[in-house]
């Protein structure tokens, strides 16, 4: 993640082993919901937790490769960039910086 995108404070999310490869988990902080992903390569990413199409938790969806699929209407995003990949999602997701420190996953929140 680019350091220049860090605008918030780092918040501890979980231990690295709490999230399996090619999976997603929900993380709530300060009244907002985030989705934390672990790619098939073991890298960690974070986006807003609610689908930009309608109000569904992405953490209830399916991670396939670098794609998160919304559980409600099967809209797909690239969770690394937040790019909306196929209808009914048309608006990109906001991504958030993630860092690993001593076996712990941190996300930069606003």
């Amino acid at each position, binding site marked *: 993640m680019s350091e220049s995108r860090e605008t918030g404070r780092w918040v501890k999310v979980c231990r690295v082993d709490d999230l399996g490869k090619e999976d997603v988990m929900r993380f709530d902080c300060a009244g907002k919901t985030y989705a934390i992903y672990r790619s098939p390569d073991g890298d960690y990413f974070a986006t807003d937790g609610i689908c930009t*199409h309608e*109000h569904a938790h992405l953490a209830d969806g*399916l991670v396939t490769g670098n794609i998160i699929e919304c*559980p*409600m*209407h*099967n809209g797909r995003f690239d969770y690394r960039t937040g790019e909306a990949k196929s209808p009914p999602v*048309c608006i990109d997701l906001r991504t958030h910086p993630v860092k690993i420190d001593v076996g712990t996953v941190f996300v930069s929140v606003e």
Partner: protein
Amino acid sequence: MGKVAWQAYSLQGSAAGASALTDAAIEDQVETEWFSCPVDRKELKRLFKRSDAPGLRNFGLWFVLLLGSGVTAYFAWGTIWLIPAFALYGVLYSSADQRHHELSHGTAFKSRWINEALYHLCSLMMLREGFFYRWSHSRHHTHTIIVGRDPEIQAPRPPDIWGLLVLDLFQIKSGPILLGRIFHNATGTLTTAGRHFVPETQRANIVWASRLYVGVLVGVALACFSVGSVLPAMFIILPRFYGYPLYQLLNLTQHTGLAEDVRDHRLSTRTIYMNPVLRFLYIDMNYHLEHHMFPMVPFYRLSEVHDLIKDQCPPAYPSLWAALREMVPTMLHQRRNPSWYIVRRPPGADAPQEPIGAGVFAQ
């Protein structure tokens, strides 16, 4: 009674799709909007996983049967055998109806290109243009049988018995509406409903696809004129009408007669046990409650979901006949009393979520 709808079924409210929400209310709404039976996350992940093999087996068998029945029907043309031959071909052809639905969810195959190619093929076979349908169907899943929000309520109350149970067995009522939508969208301006729920950035695909559909329709008509026979249309456009009765009955049982305006699929959606032949033709959409509660689950795993949650749901209907036997009298009663509906009672529910109006209790 009768011709005046008891509620305003035309689409209303925000075109954004979900119910109007303030930022502060979003979280609450997400949490409480729909009831979902608790299922272990690991188990859900397993159920969500896609594979190409089951879809290829199912669709491969379908194509073989379709081809075989088509060849048989071709050689039966001009003989008395054309009736059973084309009846079989039409039933198999119209199986594309629910196949296109499953494909619209992107769940039938792991490989997206297979899924998308077959989706648009099945959409064309059913004259249910695919780009438009995805938006319409998204709304149906967000607002299942919520009046004024769901564009796919098949039987608005009071139900049009003649239209639903007679004319639409052969899509005589709905078919022209579908065709009209294609021609309307092909002009470059979407229908009123389409403008309501399709974002402007997504409309061009619908317009161009609709023009392609018009081209196919004209092409088939020209083919019929050129050979001086309706035979070409018997293979590509008309089967969607003459082969449809079974699917009209199957589709009606999904929601008809059950509660409106409840955010619990157990009260508004049926699951029906069916024999393997019907399940194949209907691509397991008889597990309709499970499909609505977990739309990411591929068709070939819906029966597993059913086994996981059935103890938390009202009993499944034992047969298509059992569902029809409940549904048709309810539709007739709703002609006189549109507030009438069947109340489904989940196990352990002391007081079912009550929508507007009085109801009858399902046995």
